[in-house]
């Protein structure tokens, strides 16, 4: 069963790697919504995809408090609790990449969302047992991006 999942994961990553070129390794999407609405849609989509949001880092607030000006710029941290518990035991180095995160920032009346492509990060972690997780994340963040983009149309 586990082997089957691993093979499935490797195959899925191979398919994703053959997908049309984007900025290699990064997923970036423009949303035709102002920042507050896009943030609501992003959080809804993350939860809808089965993840728990742990917190939102308000980078712009930190910058402002230190005298720098910027439009809203925040980071949403999310994960599946079971994976947060299990994966560092499989490979402790993955802990530096957990929880997953999506950056969201304003550009005038639009909002941009951005993350590293889990399919790309997977190439840094050769352990087979991790591959199905990366494959699932790669699918899920794409689904989240699609949902948020659609909400803006």
């Amino acid at each position, binding site marked *: 069963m586990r082997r089957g999942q691993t093979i499935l994961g490797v195959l899925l990553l191979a398919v994703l790697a053959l997908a049309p*070129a984007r900025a290699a390794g990064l997923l970036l999407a423009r949303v035709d919504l102002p920042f507050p609405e896009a943030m609501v849609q992003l959080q809804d989509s993350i939860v809808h995809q089965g993840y728990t949001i*742990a917190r939102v880092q308000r*980078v712009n607030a930190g*910058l402002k408090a*230190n005298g720098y000006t*910027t439009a809203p710029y925040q980071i949403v941290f999310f994960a599946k609790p079971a994976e947060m*518990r299990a994966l560092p035991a499989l490979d402790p180095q993955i802990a530096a990449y957990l929880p997953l995160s999506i950056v969201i920032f304003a550009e005038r009346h639009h909002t941009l969302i951005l993350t590293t492509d889990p399919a*790309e990060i997977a190439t840094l*972690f050769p352990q087979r047992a991790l591959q199905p997780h990366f494959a699932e994340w790669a699918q899920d963040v794409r689904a989240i991006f699609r949902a948020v983009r659609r909400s803006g149309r």
Partner: protein
Amino acid sequence: MALSVSIKPRERKPASRRLGAGSAFVVVFWALGPQIAAARPATIGARLYNRDCAACHGERGRGGIGLPLSLPSFQQNVDNRYLRRTIRYGRRGRIMPPSPRLSGAQLRSMVRYIRRWAGNRPATLVGAGKPGNPARGAVLFAAHCALCHGAAGVGAPSTGVTLSRPRSQPIMAPALDNPGYLASASDPVIRTAVVRGVAGTPMPSSRREGLTAKNVDDLVAYIRSLQNRPQPATPPVRGGPDIVGVSPDGLAPTIARLKDAVQAANMRLIRVQYLDQGFVTPGMENKHQVIVYSCDFGFLNTALQVDPRVGVFLPCRITVLQHRGKVLVMSVNPKRLSTLFNNAALSRLCDEMYHRYRDVIEEATF
């Protein structure tokens, strides 16, 4: 278990009805064919543009991380060959990625779509000029162009237009020494930009700069000569996903030393929390896995100016965890991740960040 599937045989329509439907299709296609044929490439172009370009350049080409492609003065100054080649080759080390997989037809349809924003008007380039003197052009470049385009045409240290934060210029000057630019811009395209300038941006016309036609020829010759300059080789990507140190001590003293090391490195300590905090019931967290968050806001501000996508690294976090009797201290490896960005300026900052992380981790695990 056997599955039984019953398939209902298709009813054959009388020949006259089949002919009627076919004829109707032919008539409709004959009537609408040219419109369909004309609309299709633009539709493909729109789809490709929205897939590959809109996130940076904006859905209607108004710019953002990327330059505003809909700017009429820009569209007037560049021909379709320039646009096609720019999409094909990208700009090495300047965010804009190459698109080697797109076919010629796909590139043409994208260009057709981009041209719609300027009313499908073709570019009107100025004449080819005469062969210039690159040495004289270099002197003129230093006096008239280097302030924005950088010494020897390396470009502004950032890209795009001002949308999300204050910058020194409303639009960033392109790198004229970039192989992608030089492979895309013919001499007439370069000459047109110099002669006309780009209205709506800080790029002035040659007349406003008091340059003669001969000066312009020399400048074009100098910019063209930049393609003969050896380009720095892309360094091979080294290192694993993380920077890792092994502490000789237990978890608590390691975290205490890490906090001191972070502050000694002029980074502000933001918070210390368990790795799974927020994902499990409070009090049930794994106490052997801790994240130390910190930030150097001045450095962050600079990094965001260079590339607003840098947030995927943020905030600076160092994870400490107990694993098989060892206390590991680790962070992501910014040098390794910098390869995802195609941004040479950001890569330099990532190198700096790598050394800071490494020093902090060494200090905490010494």
